[in-house]
């Protein structure tokens, strides 16, 4: 586990209080057999089940990228001068990912810190949201190939446009930091 480090985290235990209260509430509703509370706890369990597997992996990846990938390389490949190739690269990067969109936020931050252009950051987020492989296979299974292909064909230019617009609206130098 990446959590087993010597140095204390910057975020104090205090920020876990809401979660502890939630758990206590869940436990109480389980004891008192209060159906709404139990149902909310069950829904929470479904989200947690998905995150528990993906998130530690995502952060292992982020940590490795942080120590191995030199800023200069990322800047060359995904930076402001990377052009169409850089954009294709971030789309591919998103393509082979898993997990919900909010798992991509920290990945976006690390890419940004390594010199990825703002445009490519938002193209990455769009691709991550709309065209990851696990999701597409799910979509084809449930909605059919035609629906899935059409949706992808229309969504791709939309999130590329969003990336371009975001860069225009925020300015190339817009800074992002990891919270905490």
């Amino acid at each position: 586990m990446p959590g087993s480090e010597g140095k204390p985290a910057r975020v104090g235990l205090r920020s876990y209080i809401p979660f502890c209260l939630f758990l206590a509430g869940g436990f109480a509703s389980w004891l008192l057999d209060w159906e709404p509370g139990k149902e909310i706890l069950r829904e929470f369990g479904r989200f947690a089940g998905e995150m528990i597997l993906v998130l530690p992996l995502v952060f292992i990846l982020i940590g490795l990228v942080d120590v191995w990938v030199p800023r200069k390389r990322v800047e060359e490949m995904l930076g402001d001068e990377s052009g169409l190739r850089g954009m294709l690269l971030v789309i591919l990067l998103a393509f082979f990912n898993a997990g919900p969109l909010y798992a991509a936020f920290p990945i976006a931050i690390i890419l940004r810190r390594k010199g990825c252009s703002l445009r490519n950051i938002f193209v990455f987020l769009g691709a991550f949201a709309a065209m990851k492989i696990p999701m597409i296979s799910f979509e084809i299974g449930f909605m059919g190939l035609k629906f899935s292909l059409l949706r992808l064909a229309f969504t791709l230019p939309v999130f590329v446009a969003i990336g371009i617009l975001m860069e225009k609206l925020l300015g190339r130098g817009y800074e992002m930091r990891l919270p905490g």
Partner: protein
Amino acid sequence: MRGFSIFIILCLAVSFMADRKRTLSGLQRGGRMFLNVMPTLLTVMILMAVALYLIPAPVIARVLGEQGGALGFLLAASIGSIVLLPGFIAYPLCSTLMKQGASVPVIAVFVTTLMMVGVLTLPMESKFFGLKAALLRNGLSLAGAVVVAILMGLSYARI
């Protein structure tokens, strides 16, 4: 998901063989970021659990299946925009919708906003990217979802 895990484990193994100290420091950094992000993430998950309890999936399916036209479209866009749902919940729901007779644009706007727009995750997103960027991204994504849905509606039946 399995492919992703195997990929990460391979990366980790290669990294360890190449440079043990560096790998440990990377894991440490990743771990610290994880702990920093965790409280916000847990709060978002709690909010989503409560939201899904208040508007359960079968209710969404019934409402969107019954409401046709502009109202259905508007409802689908609004409900889809509230939460960010993973595919394994969203797609079974959408296939139920389709069977219940919801139109293609309604389903398309619902699924696209589900994936790209999240009002509940907005506090978390603004912690990462700043409020302005988070609002802009969600707003533009909502507009984009409407465009995608209209194009889907125009083309789906003709192909």
